[in-house]
């Protein structure tokens, strides 16, 4: 009889009970994606690996709370990794004064993090979402990528692109509105398909 692979949330619950084997398995499963994201954000592999360790140490420490709040492990790890990487990037850019530890306030509260079932639905629609991103006008997509992967603020994006701040801000807001609208449609399509 075939045994079903445990979900990330089941592995996390076991890690919360200090099962190192389960944590190990969770790492093997999630870390390649997280490292890929960190390498996209951070300037070198050594730094990315350092942040990767920080992220998983935090997962180990907070496993009980994440389990209790029914947090999607994939979403929690991904959002934590990005936030920590951006903080680190800002420190590396000698902007320590501005790196106000955003990662921690952001993940101080877990109740807003997506639920496992929501992320499961989204994972099934990743390809469609990529198409949505490609539909954005190039300047909006560029500004959004600078925000997501370079961790730039709207002011820094405006400086980098040589555009007025108001134009960059309205472009980012338009991009977000478009994504929200399309994502809602994508999720409705999913619901209709099942």
């Amino acid at each position, binding site marked *: 009889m075939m045994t079903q692979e445990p979900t990330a949330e089941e592995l996390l619950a076991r890690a919360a009970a200090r099962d*190192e084997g389960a*944590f*190990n398995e969770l*790492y*093997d499963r999630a*870390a*390649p*994606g997280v*490292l*890929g*994201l960190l*390498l*996209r954000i951070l300037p070198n592999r050594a730094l990315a*690996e350092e942040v*990767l*360790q920080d992220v*998983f*140490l935090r997962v*180990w*420490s907070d496993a009980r709370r994440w389990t209790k709040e029914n947090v999607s492990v*994939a*979403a929690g790890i*991904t*959002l934590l990794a*990005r*936030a920590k990487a*951006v903080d680190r990037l800002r420190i590396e850019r000698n902007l320590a004064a501005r790196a106000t530890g*955003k990662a921690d*306030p*952001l993940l101080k*509260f877990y*109740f*807003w*993090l*997506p*639920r496992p079932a*929501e*992320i499961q639905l*989204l994972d099934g629609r*990743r390809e469609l*979402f*990529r198409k949505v*991103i490609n539909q954005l006008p190039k300047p909006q997509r560029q500004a*959004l990528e600078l*925000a*997501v*992967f370079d*961790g*730039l*603020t*709207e002011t820094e*994006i405006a400086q980098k692109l040589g555009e007025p701040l108001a134009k960059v801000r309205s472009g*980012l*807001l338009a991009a*977000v*509105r478009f*994504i*929200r609208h399309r*994502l809602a449609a994508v999720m409705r399509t999913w619901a209709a398909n099942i």
Partner: protein
Amino acid sequence: MGCQHLDEYYELYLLGTVSEGACHDIREHLERECPYCVEHLREAAHSIYLLTMTARTARLDPKQKAQLLKRLRKK
């Protein structure tokens, strides 16, 4: 104060892209577990999750995991 003025900012808040003013308001609403903000932030997190998932996966160095487990046992 209501939350509608924050409607546009949830995704940009999660990205750390917006001004301190909007960040401060959202943080304050989260502190008191405002149901409207929690719900909208969760929806915004869906988009941010998918945006970050456009990065490729990378090959792991086994030494890193050994080092991580060593640090973890010290905790």
